[in-house]
C-alpha cells in the first residue's frame, strides 16, 4: 500500500515544471529573428537582477514584448484546456470527453462571436467591452455542457455513445451558427476570424482580458483541484460516489461551472484548439495513474508544455507566415488519438 503523499506529488510536478521551463527557453529562442541561447540566458539574468536597461532594445522588444507574452498565453490556454478536459472526463465518466469533442468549445465560440457582434451597440468603455467576449464565451460553454449532459443521460445514467454523438452533433450545429454569424461581420474581419476559429495565439489579448484569464484560471483551477478526491470517486459512478460521502450535485455543479469558465476563457483568447483537453490528460493518466490529485496538476503543466510547443511550431515551420496553432495540435493530435484508440484507451 503506497498512498499518495504531498512530497511525491510535488516531485512529479517538479519534473514537468522543469520540462516546461526548458520548453519555454527554446520557444523564446526560436522564431523569425534568431536569438542565441547564451544571449537569451544573459538577458533573462539581467532582467532578474533588475538591470534590464542594459539589454538592446530590439531584442528586448522581440523577447519580452512579443514572444514571452505569447508563451504565457499558450501556458494558460494549454493548462485551462487540459484541466477542463480532465474535469469533463471525470464528471461524464468518459475518457473521450473534452471541450472540443463535446461541442463546448464551439458553444464558447458562438457565445464569444455573439458578444463581439452585440458589444458595439452597448457603448461601453473599452476596458469593460473587452471583457464581453470572455463572458460570452463562458456562458456559451456553460449552456453547451448542460445541454450535452442532459442529451447524454438515459434512464438516470450517462450513456457514453449518446453523449459523444450528442456532443458531435451540437458542435456541427454551432459551426453552422458560426458560419451564419460570420456572414454578418465586415469582410476585413473574416481572415482573423477564420484563424481564431481554428485556434490562434498570434493576437495578444487586451490587458483586462489577460488579467481575467489569469484570475479566472487560478480561481477555477483551485476550485476544481479542491474536488480532486471527489472526482476520483465520481469515476466509479454517481451512485457509488454518493455512498462514499460525495455531495454529488454540489461537486457536479461547481466543477461544470469551473470547467466551463476555463474553456470559455481559453476559447475567447485563442479560439477552438482541439485535442489538448483530450490527449494530454490521457497521456498523463498512462504515466501517473488516474488519481486526480496528481492528474490535475500534471495535466495542467503538460497541457501548457503541449500548447507552447505547438504554438512555437505554428509560428516557425512556415516562416515567414504562420499556421493557426489549432492546425498544429490537430496535425499531431489526430494520429496520436487514433493510435491510442486502436491500442485500447485504457
Amino acid at each position, binding site marked *: 500500500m503506497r498512498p*499518495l503523499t504531498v512530497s511525491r506529488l510535488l516531485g512529479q510536478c517538479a519534473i514537468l515544471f522543469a520540462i516546461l521551463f526548458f520548453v519555454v527557453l527554446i520557444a523564446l529562442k526560436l522564431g523569425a529573428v534568431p536569438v542565441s541561447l547564451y544571449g537569451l540566458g544573459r538577458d533573462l539574468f539581467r532582467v532578474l537582477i533588475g538591470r534590464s536597461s542594459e539589454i538592446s532594445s530590439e531584442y528586448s522588444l522581440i523577447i519580452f514584448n512579443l514572444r514571452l507574452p505569447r508563451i504565457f498565453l499558450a501556458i494558460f490556454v494549454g493548462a485551462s484546456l487540459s484541466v477542463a478536459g480532465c474535469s469533463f472526463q471525470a464528471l461524464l465518466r468518459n475518457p473521450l470527453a473534452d471541450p472540443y469533442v463535446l461541442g463546448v468549445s464551439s458553444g464558447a465560440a458562438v457565445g464569444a462571436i455573439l458578444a463581439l457582434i452585440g458589444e458595439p451597440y452597448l457603448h461601453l468603455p473599452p476596458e469593460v467591452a473587452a471583457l464581453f467576449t470572455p463572458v460570452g464565451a463562458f456562458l456559451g460553454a456553460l449552456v453547451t455542457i448542460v445541454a450535452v449532459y442532459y442529451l447524454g443521460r438515459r434512464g438516470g445514467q450517462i450513456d457514453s455513445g449518446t453523449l459523444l454523438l450528442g456532443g458531435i452533433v451540437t458542435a456541427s450545429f454551432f459551426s453552422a451558427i458560426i458560419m451564419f454569424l460570420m456572414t454578418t461581420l465586415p469582410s476585413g474581419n473574416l481572415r482573423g476570424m477564420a484563424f481564431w476559429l481554428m485556434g490562434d495565439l498570434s493576437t495578444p489579448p487586451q490587458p483586462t482580458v489577460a488579467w481575467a484569464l489569469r484570475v479566472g484560471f487560478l480561481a477555477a483551477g483551485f476550485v476544481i483541484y479542491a474536488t480532486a*478526491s471527489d472526482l476520483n470517486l465520481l469515476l*466509479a459512478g454517481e*451512485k*457509488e460516489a454518493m*455512498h462514499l*460521502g460525495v455531495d454529488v450535485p454540489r461537486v457536479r455543479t461547481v466543477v461544470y461551472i469551473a470547467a466551463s469558465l476555463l474553456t470559455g476563457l481559453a476559447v475567447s483568447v485563442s479560439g477552438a484548439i482541439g485535442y489538448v483537453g483530450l490527449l494530454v490528460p490521457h497521456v498523463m*493518466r498512462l504515466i501517473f495513474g488516474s488519481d486526480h490529485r496528481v492528474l490535475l496538476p500534471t495535466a495542467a503543466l503538460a497541457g501548457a508544455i503541449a500548447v507552447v510547443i505547438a504554438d512555437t511550431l505554428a509560428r516557425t515551420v512556415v516562416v515567414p507566415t504562420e499556421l493557426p496553432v489549432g492546425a498544429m495540435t490537430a496535425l499531431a493530435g489526430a494520429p496520436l488519438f487514433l493510435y491510442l484508440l486502436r491500442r485500447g484507451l485504457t
Partner: protein
Amino acid sequence: MEAARNTSDARLSVEQVSYAYTPNPAHSPIFTLEASSFQAKPGEIVAILGPNASGKSTLLKLISGALEPLSGRILLNGFVTHTLAPRTRAQRIAMVQQESPLLFPSRAWEFVLQGRHPYGKSLRFENEDDVIIAKNALAQVGAEHLSDRWMDQISGGEKQRVILARALAQQPLLLLLDEPTLHLDIGAQVDLLDSLRRLAAQNRYTVVVVTHELNLAAEYADQVVLLQKGKCLRVGPPASVYQRDLLEQVFQTPLTVEMGPSGRPRVNVEAHREGD
C-alpha cells in the same frame, strides 16, 4: 406476525416506509412500495427476499438514504437517514452494490482506501491511520494478498471481497449489500456470507442484504423481510417466514420447505414434470 420487538435496542428502524417511482409526474407511478416496517439490532443480519420487481432494491435504497421515502421514516441510531449530510451518512452506512465497471484500472489497495473518503475534507491525502484501517479491512475479509493486484485482473469472488473491504474501511454501523452473491460460484458465496456473519458478530454491524438465494438467506439471516409486488408480506426469522404456501404463492413456483438439522428451513424447487 411476530410480537412487537423492543424498540430501545434497535439500531435500524424502518417505520411504515413507502415510496412511489413516478418518472413522469403527469402519469400514475409505475412502481410503488407500500408501507413497510422492520427493525434490526447490532450484529443482526436481515435478508430482503422477493421475486424480481418486488421492491427489494427500492427498500435498500430507501434505507441507504439515496431515496427519500414518500411517507414513514428510517432511523439509524435515532437519526433519519435521508436527511444526513452525505459525508456523515457515509460514515454510518456502507453500501456494497453490484460492481460497476471501472473506467480506469486501479489497484485493490487504492480501491479500499476510497472507503476512508468520508473521514476527510474534500482534498485529502491519506494518513497512517487510514492505511492501517484499510489494511485491517482487507485482512478481515482475507484479502491481504490482493492488495497490490489490479481490480480488473482478479476473480469475481476476490473482487467482491475487496469491495466488501472498502465498505468495512468506512467503519459503518450499517452494512447494506445488493445481491452480493450474484455471479459467484457456490464456494465463493458461502465464503462471503461466512465472513459477513463473522464480521456482523465481531464488529456489531447491522447487515441488510438483498438476495435471490432463498437457502443462503435461510442459513445466514436472523430476520427475513419478504416482499411481493411492492408489499411487505412477512417479517420474521426464516423459520416463521418460510412456509410452503406463502413461498409458492410469492415466487409462483411449486416448491417444498423442510427443516434442516440446524433448525433453519430449506427450500427445494420442484420442476414441472409431465405426469407428476
